[in-house]
């Protein structure tokens, strides 16, 4: 994986996100320019309140930047209507949230195919089966979320994020609600998705162990990029985090 072959899947340029007015303005993002590369597993790290979620939401078309631009697959999100953004999220982006990832009335199978179903799109059945096999959900497909464990639910979420073969997958603290064993399992699946299925993942986390699964880490502090790290290990990350004042 040399930098020569890397293509940009998503990026921000001079991104600013400002909350509040006058005296009480908060710069959740303060001039952030960052690229996320295809085929890589990138982690975004930083202390609580440093703007990780905000950054992710703005690149994923869930929120709007106050200034600057966010680009996915060459398209500038700021110029898109709500309808186009919805379509973009459905077709080019996969999501894994910390909790409440699944629609309770739908089966695991329906939840996995949800973005495809919403787009009236059959999808690539061979691919979907491969994804389901990768996360070991073959015999849980007809279950509803309430009949699944927390780890199984997150596996369904991972499968859903992968099902539509998106350009990029965003995960916000995907293991935050899980115990470390189950969390490790989910992270391995995500790793596998990148290595074997050639997917692109951007994951927000504040857990050094989780971040160690990534190829590259982008550090944020006070709404600014505070450096990055390639081929991280948990210890290296921990050290770096300490210096960021977590």
């Amino acid at each position, binding site marked *: 994986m040399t930098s020569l072959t890397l293509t940009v899947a998503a990026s921000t340029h001079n991104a600013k996100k400002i909350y509040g007015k006058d005296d009480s303005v908060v710069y959740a993002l303060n001039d952030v320019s960052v690229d996320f590369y295809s085929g890589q597993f990138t982690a975004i790290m930083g202390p609580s309140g440093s703007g990780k979620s905000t950054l992710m939401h703005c690149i994923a078309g869930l929120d709007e930047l106050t200034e600057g631009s966010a680009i996915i697959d060459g398209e500038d999100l700021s110029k898109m209507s709500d309808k186009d953004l919805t*379509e973009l999220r459905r077709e080019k982006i996969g999501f894994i949230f910390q909790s409440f990832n699944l629609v309770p009335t739908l089966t695991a199978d*329906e939840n996995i195919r949800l973005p495809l179903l919403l787009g009236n799109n059959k999808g690539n059945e061979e691919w979907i089966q491969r994804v389901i096999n990768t996360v070991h959900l073959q015999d849980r497909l007809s279950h509803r979320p309430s009949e699944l464990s927390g780890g199984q639910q997150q596996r369904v979420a991972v499968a859903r994020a992968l099902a539509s073969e998106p350009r990029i997958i965003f995960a916000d603290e995907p293991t935050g609600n899980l115990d470390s064993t189950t969390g490790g399992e989910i992270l391995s699946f995500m790793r596998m998705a990148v290595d074997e299925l050639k997917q692109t993942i951007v994951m927000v986390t504040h857990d050094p162990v989780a971040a160690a699964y990534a190829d590259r880490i982008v550090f944020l502090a006070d709404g600014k990029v505070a450096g990055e790290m390639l081929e991280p290990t948990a210890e290296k990350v921990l050290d770096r985090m300490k210096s960021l004042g977590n």
Partner: protein
Amino acid sequence: MFRIALKGILGRKARLVLTSLAVILGTAFLSGTSIFSATLTRTFDNLFSDVFQNVDAYVRSSQVIEADFGQEERQRIPVSLVDIVKTVPGVSDAAPDIQAFARIIGSDGKPLGADGNGPPTFGGVYTKYKGALWTIKQGHAPMNAGEVAIDEASVKAGKLTLNKKVKVVAQTGSREFTLVGIASYGNVRSPGGATFALFDPTTAQEFLAKPGFVDDILVTGDGSLSETALAAAINKAITKEIATKPVLKGVKTETLTGAQITQETQDQIGSALSFFGILLSVFSYIALGVGCFVIYNVFSISAAQRQRENALLRAIGASKKQISRAMLIEATIIGLFGSLVGLVGGIGLSKALSGLLRALSIDIPSGDLVITRSTVQQTLIAGLVVTLVSAWFPARRAGRVPPLAAMRETAIEIIASGKKRTIGGLVTIAAGVAVVVAVIAGAETTWLGIGILLVFIGTIILGPVIARPVALFLGRPAARFRGITGSMARQNSARNPKRTARTASPVLIGVALVTAVTALAASIKGQIDDVFTQQFKGDYAVSTNNRGFGGLSPSLALDISKLPEVAKATGIGLVTAKLDDKGQYITTISPESINGVWNIGLINAQYSDLATNSIFVSQKKAVKIGVAKGSIMKILFADGMTRKLTVSGLYVHNEIGDYIISKSLLADTTVVSFDRGVYIVTKQGVSSTVARAALTKAVTKYGQGDLLSKREYINKRSGNVNQLLGLIYGLLFLSVIIAVVGIIITLLLSVFERQRELGLLRAVGMTRSQVRTTVRWESVITSLLGAVIGIVLGIGLGWVIVFALRDQGLRNFALPIGSTIFIVFASFIVGVLAAIYPAWRATKVDILSALNTN
């Protein structure tokens, strides 16, 4: 706990508004209909206390025959008594009075006033009398047989001009008069919307009643005697006069005080109106009952949504009672607030009701709104009670929430054991069906109501159990044709069966009632159609709506029969008489002309068997009262004479009445008789255009009655059913509105509850329009759920009612397929409409805050 309750209310304004809405609507209907009835009664009361304002005594015949529906037939008294009354000490003035039917024909040839249901069209006397309320504003008083004075409003409405000719129709026929005076009544242009044609006393007697006779005498005292003493004195003088004058033999009178006649008239109107008032309040209580479901639902949902909060309160030490009480306090506040707003809303609604009735051409006098204390009490108490009762179970359940639930993820309604519910529901339904079957097998008909009620209650108990499978079934097409959105709508409508059932219940009740009423109406219409096709053998009919008061002049039938285009014409009328000591309507026919025009299905008899000393009795009635051909019956007419009539024939088709006499029987009596219809057979070879033109001319001369072809006539008869149907639909509409509001509220609460889910769906790519589709289909499925079960119940209910009415001659149950399909379609539309606002709210869910709430 009060503070917590208050915070509970204020903290969730949306929920407060939604819960109150159900209370507001329910109580608004109650107070609206109550204000409306009170206003109507007061308006009429005022009208009559004005009429008798200067009347201290009132003399009339004491011979009266009362029939059903408060109709009465009173004998007239000789006008010569007026002079006797005037000589009584204490009497200042007395005047003859006639209240008879008279219809003024406007300058465009059209009669004034509504035919049938509107305010009456009166003919009366204008004399110089101290107590008179009529004054001539323009022109002069009518003084001879060619003159008439007319009330100001009618002059205006008919575009009549002073000193020009005007046609007036009365019982004796139609006549032209010169309009010599424009009268005004007190300071009102026309009392209560009625029309008045006033004549001098002699003309009035001869044209409106019978020469030498009047209806009553109005007396004004000189103030020296109390009303009671005055009435007694007058009575004494009249009794003495009758005893000494052989001409007056058989005349019987009574003298009422002014207060008595005012009261009596008010009571008569009051009892006529009270039926209407009862009808209105029945429907508003139905609406309020339907509202109960909505209130209950809102409290249940909010209890479920606040489960964590309540569990937390329990965990930190609040008792079960405190939790329940907080919710009941909340309910009390909402109940009071909602009822107060509802009371105010009722004022607007009572105005809307007047409008609705006017649209149905039931004209009513207008007056200031009357808000009685009982309206206020009834509204507030009903609103409060309904709210508290509806909140009771949810409040108790809220108290029972385990403290542990605070740690649970989402709101889950505690679901009572489905088995108990299934058994309870089925047993109740079975009991209800058993009662209905017992009635069909011959038990007392009054049990039907209980049976039906049991079936309804059972269905509602069973609701949550059947809601899920039925909703899933009904949602199939949505899932099939609407892809994932339809499929999610289907799942959503089934995910909380209790809630869905409670939401669908008001629709169920509304639809069941509408279906039953429609089926009943269709059955009645079918019956009318059959009956009249079978019995009416003519080509045309002249019909009038004036029930009880006035009708077609008997000479109309004679005039028509003389037309060269007409082969035969016969009039059929009604008269009130006492038969076997019971007031009855007796049908009057002309035996010489009815044959071949109207077929009553005589059994071994002919029309010619009906002589002046005989009577026909319907076979059914004959069996019931135990008479046969040859039996003698005693009949008392309003002239006070009892006659013996021989039953000379029985007949099958009793639609025109159970007793028939010949008109010649009444020819030489003072008994008033009008024709209710004239039935005509045209000559062969006369084209319908020619016939119609000739008949129209003849009918127009009388200025009354509608000329109808056979088909039109039959349609008009069943059209009366439509009018009633329209009124009932209008009243049921109140319940339908509440049902719709119920769906809106539940959907809104569900949308609030599913914010996170909606946020997630939007994040992974659900478009706004897909969100709307999901909410819309959920709404449609819920509405259809109520409609489908409602239709099933409604058809059953309709059938049972038709069965119960079989004694009234209703023979066949007709299932209105078109209307049933329409109801299903309408429920679909209701679902779509109810979803508009909640669906819009659902699209406004902020994705990020939905995802961030934990």
